[in-house]
């Protein structure tokens, strides 16, 4: 009898532990998959390029790209290009995000503003800011600021539209609660409209971040004499594709880094969301 009792008490724990260990193993397996997929592709690329099964002029082996990266970094040439691009990206990003949030909030909160600006925003959104670069350059010259304006123009729209959607998606019951408890418009703005729209707004900012990177490369290709986009373009024209790939890798790294940064910020700013 006693033995049975002990069995019943110890067995389930052991059973559950085994299950838990199994699920941990599976988790490790998935992590390995994530890690190995790029490594496998790079290895394959290396081999195919070295054996000239793919044209090494267009697809230089990754190892030589790394060498080129180190070479450029040591030269000091690379960091100045990276810094200037980073400066333009951040400047343009904030130049687009801040007005985007402000107008988005106003559109979401006030019907007259919505009916005045929403159609304009919708109509202007599909126009690629890059197509306006010649005009932007005429107005602002070949300056850092003209790149920032170009980036800002692209970032503005997703942020504005998402913020407006975020506000209008706030459950009307919270508007009632605020009204019934006597919230003044300033309190309504900071306690209801702003935090309530934050989750959707952050999605818009995440999109804006990606668009900023797309835009900077193209903008620097068109009218610049520095920056990563310039580097990519010049190396491409000189047919130094290793250098071009270095530029692409840096952009990819930026995108990854910014995404992680924004996700972190999102968790910090929106702690109520699981």
């Amino acid at each position, binding site marked *: 009898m006693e033995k049975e009792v002990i069995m019943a008490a110890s067995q389930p724990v052991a059973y559950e532990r085994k299950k838990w260990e199994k699920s941990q193993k599976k988790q490790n397996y998935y992590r390995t998959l994530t890690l190995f997929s790029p490594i496998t592709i790079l290895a394959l690329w290396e081999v195919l390029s070295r054996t000239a099964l793919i044209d090494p002029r267009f697809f230089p082996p990754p190892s030589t790209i790394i060498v080129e990266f180190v070479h450029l970094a040591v030269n000091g040439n690379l960091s100045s290009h990276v810094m200037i691009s980073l400066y333009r990206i951040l400047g343009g990003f904030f130049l687009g995000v801040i007005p985007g949030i402000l107008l988005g909030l106003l559109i979401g909160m006030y019907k007259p503003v919505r009916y005045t600006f929403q159609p304009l925003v919708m109509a202007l959104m599909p126009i690629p800011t890059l197509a306006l670069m010649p005009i932007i350059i005429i107005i602002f010259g070949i300056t850092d600021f003209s790149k920032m304006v170009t980036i800002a123009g692209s970032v503005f729209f997703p942020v504005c539209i998402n913020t407006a959607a975020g506000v209008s998606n706030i459950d009307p*019951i*919270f508007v*009632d609660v605020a009204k*019934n408890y006597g919230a003044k418009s300033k309190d309504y703005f900071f*306690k209801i409209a702003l935090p309530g729209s934050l989750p959707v707004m952050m999605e818009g900012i995440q999109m804006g971040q990606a668009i900023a990177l797309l835009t900077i490369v193209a903008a620097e290709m068109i009218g610049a004499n520095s920056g990563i986009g310039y580097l990519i373009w010049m190396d491409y024209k000189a047919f130094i594709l290793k250098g071009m790939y270095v530029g692409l890798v840096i952009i990819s790294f930026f995108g990854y880094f910014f995404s992680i940064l924004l996700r972190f910020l999102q968790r910090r700013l929106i702690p*109520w*969301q699981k």
Partner: protein
Amino acid sequence: MSSDIKIRVHQLSKIFFRKNSSVHAIRDINFEVKNGEFVCLLGPSGCGKTTLLRILAGLEKPSGGSYEMIHGDRNKPLQSMIFQEKGVIPWMTVEENVAFGLRMRHAPKNETKERTDYYLKKVGLWEFRKLYPSEISGGMKQRASIARAFANDPEILLMDEPFAALDEQNKYILQEELLSIWEETKKTVLFITHSIDEALLLSDRILLMSAQPGTIVREKIIDLPRPRKIASVRSNPKMGKEFVDIWKHLQEAVNGNLKGATTSLPNEVY
């Protein structure tokens, strides 16, 4: 003297106007609520009781008639509404939710803290005060909602079926808790419900409403001694009779409505 009257509603009507049809939500509502009285508005769903409450809460404008709520102490807010479960604001912690009314009327910091802490403890949410609504149960959310209204210290509490979304056990527990908090503050309460049991347990007086257009058709005084407990109200034979009586009324109201709907169907249907 009539100075004891807290809420006075006179010939109140609300019509929702659409292009092709207008709906008479409530029609010619008349009633009074005394200071410190607990009144339940009981009626079938769709009888316009929520509309009536929303008008008194200042969230909707009446189409006709008038209402008056006597504001005694100018240092206190006149009325606060206890919304249904989802009225708890998700981006504020339980504590911030409870303090919401006090913050909105910019009450002194120490008063806000004191009252918030008191009602957090009172409704048993003290340990959970730093959590967000998504992290607590439906019953706890409704506790927060009740604490928010009481912490704001209004003269009148308007409650819109606050327990309708809760499971039975939670509902009973919260009803008794509401009664015990109410008994120490003696605020004037107008409580909306479609549950006969709830109305019998809570109220001094029940106003029975008919279905659309909502009007008050009857009044029942519930003179059970307080403090009340669910068990004693349930086992009281007089309350059993009252239940049946109200139930018959509601049945008529709902069936009458159905009959009306049937006869108004176009002939082609048959």
